[in-house]
């Protein structure tokens, strides 16, 4: 087992491990392809607020996705020539919901509540990144337990016992 063989084996191993890590990170932070090429950037620049479309973020645990009716509310008149808007109008005529693809996802045993976070003074950018400047929405951070816990532990002292309690986020 001379040295050359050993060295090449180690390099190969390193290469495999490295590509594995990069691939998983990319997979998590990759931007899923959506049925309609929707750009947050144009809407935010046009002055639309987050809560206008994601209405139930303040009152319920999920933020909610705008209904096709809400999209058509404006796009009945605005920029009806674009082909993206035409596909939207297609869905509307067929009375079919738009099969958006979820961008940030939590496992099934996690209880996440938007209402509690917004009441605690956090805003959308803290977790979802500056979506206002994204043409293709992508997750900016791997939202796993470590990341949430890190923020929870930095809260004021009297809240930490509750926020570090497993029952707060585990169903």
């Amino acid at each position: 087992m001379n040295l050359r063989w050993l060295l090449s084996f180690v390099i190969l191993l390193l290469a495999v491990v490295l590509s594995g890590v990069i691939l998983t990170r990319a997979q998590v932070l990759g931007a899923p392809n959506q049925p309609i090429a929707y750009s947050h950037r144009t809407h935010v620049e046009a002055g639309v607020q987050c809560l206008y479309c994601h209405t139930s973020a303040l009152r319920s645990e999920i933020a909610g996705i705008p209904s096709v009716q809400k999209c058509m509310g404006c796009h009945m008149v605005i920029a009806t020539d674009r082909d993206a808007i035409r596909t939207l109008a297609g869905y509307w005529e067929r009375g079919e919901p738009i099969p958006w693809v979820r961008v940030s996802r939590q496992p099934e045993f996690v209880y996440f509540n938007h209402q509690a976070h917004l009441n605690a003074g956090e805003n959308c950018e803290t977790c979802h990144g500056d979506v206002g400047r994204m043409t293709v929405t992508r997750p900016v951070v791997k939202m796993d337990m470590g990341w949430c816990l890190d923020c929870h532990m930095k809260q004021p002292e009297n809240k930490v016992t509750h926020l570090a309690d497993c029952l707060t986020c585990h169903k």
Partner: protein
Amino acid sequence: MNRDEDTLNNNPLHSTFKETMPKTLTRREFLKIAAGATAASGLAPAVRSIVIEPFVQPPEEVLPGQATWYASTCRQCPAGCGIIVRTINGRAKKIEGNPLHPLNRGKLCARGQAGLQVLYNPDRLKNAVRQSGGRGSRQFEPLYWPEALDLLSDKIAALSNAERIAFLGGLMPSHIYRLATRLFETLGAAPPVIYDLQSALEGRSAASQLSQAFFGAPDLPVYDISQSDVVLSFGANLLETWMSPVAQSAAYGAMRQGGMGSRGLFVQFEPRLSATAASADEWIPVRPGAEGFVALAIGRIIVEERLGHVGSHRTQAVLYQNVDVREMAAASDVPIETLHRLARAFADADRAVAIPGGYLAGQRNGFSSMLAVQALNLVVAQVGREGGVFLSNPGPTAALRQNLPVNAFDEVIDLIVRMKAGEIDLLLVHGANPMYELPAAAGFAEAIARVPFVVSFSPFVDETAVWADLILPDHTYLESWGYQVPSPGADRPVVSSQQPVVRPLYDTLAAADVLLGLAARLGGKPAEALPWEDEASYLEETVGELHGSSLGAYDARTPSGFWALWRQYGGWWSEKKIRREPELTEVVQTPLPISDPQFEGDPEDYPFHLYPYSSIILSDGRGANLPWLQEAPDPMTTVQWGMWVELNPKTASALGVSDNDIVQVESPYGMLEAPVVIYPGIRPDVVAIPVGQGHQDYGRFAQAVNGSNPLVLVAPVTDPGTGALAWGATRVRLKPTGRKQILARLESLDGNGRESLG
């Protein structure tokens, strides 16, 4: 209505939901996408894609992620409690009692809680079916609804005369009964026969005949247990399945620890210590059929010794003219001192009530026993007083007042006789399962074979539906409309409303819509009698009459506003308590009848009395197809998924059997085998078997149980006084078979019922 699946990802059934969305992906499209996807994913990392489908037009009452509650009525038993159902994304998640409803005040029993498994039962019929391989073949082929309705209306039209159609129903919703009666009137046929095992076991027809005799009105009495200090219950398992268990349980809770420091005395007279007797202070094991004698003895003692503070009993003396206390004590196997003690307690109490129960009606001398018990309430003048007896409030308007009467067993026997004689061409069955619920000896099986065309409305393929030619599955109660005037009622006039809490799961059709469709197809008088084009408009009109009444707890300016509030509140009820004091008829002046109980089968070779009781879990067997109920343990024997014979320890040792030994129970009419449960709380000469198991059809959960139906043994005899089925009047004999069957018990037999070892 569309659905927002944003919360779908944290709901395990994401994939299941997708099929029901009407999205068809043709094979070529799929191949195109698959080819593209594989090429693309080769390059970019394939991001695991979970689809979220928002609403197209969001309904206004739905806030994504938060539950929406819909009010409705529970149909698991005829009590008619108000419920509210939690739905998320258009799926029903949890049933809870309606806190505003005056009957159950937010509470619910085990069967009510299991209602969701009726809606989402895997064995439900998905569309109208016809039994293709002939009756009993269990091969069904689907039918389109218009086609099925045409078939049925042609059958009705083809009838030679109107007498040849029959409608056999269980305790169905009031509005279907009203439509059916109206349709049958216009056809000139006899009104529907209402009978099911639950009403027989709780003695509902006997109780209304008792009210007719005592108070001149067929409405069921309401016993104000919560306010009374002494409650003598004769055979009424009021905390399990008798009449309105949730309202009675809530009253029992108040009587015990309600407040004002007084704790009521509760005495139960029955041959077997039921779960109700377990909560009672005293259980008096009376000889079967002799409960009436105990009541007569107590009444006689009170009148003779002028007990209590109600003044002289001269007016009631005539009632107990020919009653001899010593003889009564001997007949009922109850020591005289106990009778004296109880009579004194009953008379001295400020507020006392005696309750004639279902078991009394199950005897050949049922009516005389019930009269004797009701007379006790007269003796202590508790009729119409706090803590005593009131009458149920009828429906507030004329349309709602038409509540469904319960026919006695002899009317069912007449129907069977007519069927056997071939006088019936078309039989409709709704909400009842006579093949399973009638005693086998009554001969319903042969009778149904002679009816050329049988139609069943059951959403499940139960024993009767298997012998039907056409099944038009009704919606389950969480998917259908309706109203019900609960009887026995609450402390005020109430009408519970019923609305669909979820969109109907399958291609089923409401029975009311079937009747309206038939009327439309038949044309002529039926069409005028039933002019509404669908069930909802019919209900809106019937309920509309309540609009504007001054009593109501709520009111609305417009009829449609009232209709909306009617659905949101879950019914209509008066704001203040309105109790209906009954007026007494002249039956009070005649001496009470004393008749001895007779039993089928002579005592020598049939030494034991058969006591088939309705278990708190399965009631009369309608709950057998719900896995939650099958797995919920029976409170007294803690057996799950099972059926058993309860024997007194001495009887069992005399027979040489112990727990889990299979014993053969034989009556003059039938025979069955079941494992034994050693039951300390039962008379040595009584054998108790729970009703509800032994289903051959009715779905995978009901058929999974290795048990048999005790009604195979019951003699089809009736109580001459009321015509009700005397289900407690059969004698049986026991023979050990030497085999064993392990019952699935919660408790360990080694622990033999001890609380601790201290």
